[in-house]
């Protein structure tokens, strides 16, 4: 007989993604002012830290993590995303972080295998 599995553990939302993203942002750029020379390395480190914490969870998920870092200059930015996936098991989480000199937006998408 086919076993009935309750998918609780496979739901993306239960992976507490926001705290991982947040801690990655804080450790990479928390307390820093915007610096053009460093921003490349900051985006890389935020994304890599978030990804490595997500993979440590060991869930059967594929992840996509996007990071936008923008200097605060009065300019506007709009972001939208549209996804074609399985609503019951896939999800996303967006964290918007700002300090006095810059904005940082991290979006993490998780797709069940």
């Amino acid at each position, binding site marked *: 007989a086919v076993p009935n599995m309750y998918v609780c553990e496979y*739901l993306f939302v*239960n992976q507490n993604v926001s705290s991982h993203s947040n801690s990655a942002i804080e450790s990479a750029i928390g307390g820093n002012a915007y610096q053009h020379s460093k921003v490349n390395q900051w985006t890389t480190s935020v994304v890599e830290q978030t990804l490595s914490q997500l993979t440590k969870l060991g869930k059967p998920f594929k992840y996509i993590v996007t990071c936008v870092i923008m200097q605060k200059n009065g300019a506007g930015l709009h972001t939208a995303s549209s996804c074609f996936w399985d609503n019951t098991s896939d999800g*996303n989480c967006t964290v918007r972080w700002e300090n006095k000199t810059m904005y940082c937006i991290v979006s993490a998408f998780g797709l069940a295998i």
Partner: protein
Amino acid sequence: MSDIAKDKAARLLKKRGSVSSLSSHEVRAKEIIGKNKDSMSTVSYMDEPGHEIPRLAIQLENTYQLGPAKRFPVVTVNNILKDVLTNYLQEEKYEAELCRQMTKTISEVIKARVKDLMIPRYKIIVIVHIGQLNEQSMRIGSRCIWDPASDTFSSYAFKNTSLFGLANVYAVYFE
């Protein structure tokens, strides 16, 4: 036999439907979680954690397929992105309300056109950024954990005198 199962799986996936960001009632939870003395962060989810009742896993039949039957056509999608972005943004000037609607519309249009390509068993994520050009500096980056043999992405950046637009499409194979 595997064709029938493949079709069933594809239809099931399609029936799951797509969440439209145009109807923003889908973004349910919005909490301010951190406020240091010099930084602030906000989080938004698709679904609130712990909110959903555990659902029964739907067992799909084996397709005995090792890889995608039809690969994702990156070049075609690049052209779609170029087409859509230039058509929608060529003449526009940056305006907050217009661009807010524009990002949502463009991401829906791109998703619909990529879905029309009918690539079976691929999940699609479309991300669109539109921003003002104001002598500020910005960096957009992304990393993915997936199977590089079957999953891929496509990207196009558009710029005119007052705004820039960036569209990314990620295609992930559903095994």
